[in-house]
């Protein structure tokens, strides 16, 4: 089975998508076959991070983006695969220039969430995506599957957590994030108690850290103390290059002349990617 990780924190803007993109590229660089999946919403941010969203959007506008990521949750998915054969799954996957494959988001994730809410049986409601990964993605032989989730708890989010059973929580150095990681840990404990599914907090990843400030150092210490098992080996420094690269549709690994902070960030992603795959493979 592929190693699976979902990026989640019940808060927007902490760098979930950027973390998934960069850890994915770092893993690919280390020789792993990597698939990234965007369940985070209709904006297609993960595909934008690799400059492939424009094509996806053209096919969405032309009503050609079917099947898509929202289709795999449907009762009829098995029938669709029977009719279309291997093409059904192949159709979902887009290749990027940075060595990772990607299943992009689709606007259908929006109404899908409400549709999932109509399924009375909670186990059925939350396990659809897990079945999809087990039955249709695992046979493709990827070493790692990294899933980007919405920055809030929705039915789609729970599907992602169920399927991955390992959470990467990118955090900024602020009081709200610290609180949200605490809440996340409580939620994961509830999931385990109510559904007998163990979802581990695999990595708390301090992100956009400005090491020049005293406050950042204090938060880093606090995270270290609170999550000694889960804290990432390296924090990711704040870097304008990351924002610029993302806007240009690439990761900082693709930059020809990275700045000092971008080089530090690359190293951090490499070390963290290695630790992440080791942690989730131990399960």
């Amino acid at each position, binding site marked *: 089975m592929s190693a699976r990780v979902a990026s989640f924190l019940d808060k927007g803007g902490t760098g979930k998508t950027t973390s998934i993109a960069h850890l994915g590229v770092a893993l690919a660089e280390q020789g792993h076959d990597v698939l990234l999946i965007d369940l985070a919403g*209709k904006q297609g941010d993960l595909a934008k991070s690799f400059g492939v969203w424009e094509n996806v959007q053209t096919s969405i506008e032309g009503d050609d983006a079917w*099947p898509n990521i929202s289709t795999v949750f*449907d009762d009829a998915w098995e*029938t*669709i695969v029977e009719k279309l054969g291997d093409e059904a799954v192949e159709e979902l996957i887009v290749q990027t220039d940075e060595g990772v494959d990607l299943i992009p988001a689709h606007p259908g994730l929006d*109404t899908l969430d409400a549709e999932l809410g109509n399924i009375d049986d909670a186990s059925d409601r939350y396990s659809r995506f897990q079945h999809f990964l087990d039955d249709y993605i695992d046979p493709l032989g990827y070493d790692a599957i990294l899933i980007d989730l919405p920055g809030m708890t929705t039915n789609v989010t729970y599907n992602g957590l169920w399927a991955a059973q390992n959470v990467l929580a990118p955090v900024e150095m602020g009081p709200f994030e610290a609180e949200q990681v605490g809440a996340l840990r409580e939620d994961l404990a509830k999931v385990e108690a109510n559904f007998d599914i163990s979802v581990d907090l695999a990595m708390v990843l301090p992100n956009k850290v400005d090491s020049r400030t005293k406050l950042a150092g204090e938060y880093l210490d606090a995270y270290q103390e609170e999550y000694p098992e889960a804290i990432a080996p390296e924090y990711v420094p704040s870097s304008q290059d990351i924002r610029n690269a993302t806007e240009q549709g690439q990761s900082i690994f693709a930059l020809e002349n990275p700045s000092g902070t971008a080089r530090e960030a690359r190293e951090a992603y490499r070390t963290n990617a290695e630790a992440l795959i080791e942690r989730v493979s131990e399960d």
Partner: protein
Amino acid sequence: MDDEIEELKQQTSQGDRLDEANAEQNRHALKSSILEELERIEAGDEQKVVSVWDGPMAALVRALEKHPDQLEKLGHSLQDELGVDEGEVDRSEVIRLALRLGLRTASTEVVEATREAVSDQATKNL
């Protein structure tokens, strides 16, 4: 794409909530207008007649009347496509069926709005 796949696509396509809300609102507005028109017809303010200016179609319909076997065959084929019981057909019935089939093919929402308006009107005095 074969019909079965196209049907699966229609059944399993999810969308954007804002777009869907807009479509729902448009359908509701159309249904209200249909209901108003039905009431005007019921009150005798409007006629139940639809007329179109179309030379070739007028010629075809009159010609079909001269060839009742072909008129009947066409009528039964339309009934079959619409999934209604095969029954007697005349000129008006063939046009009615063709109109309904055309609308259903182009937009199930429009047909659905009409069906709901007719049903609302039928049950309003119960």
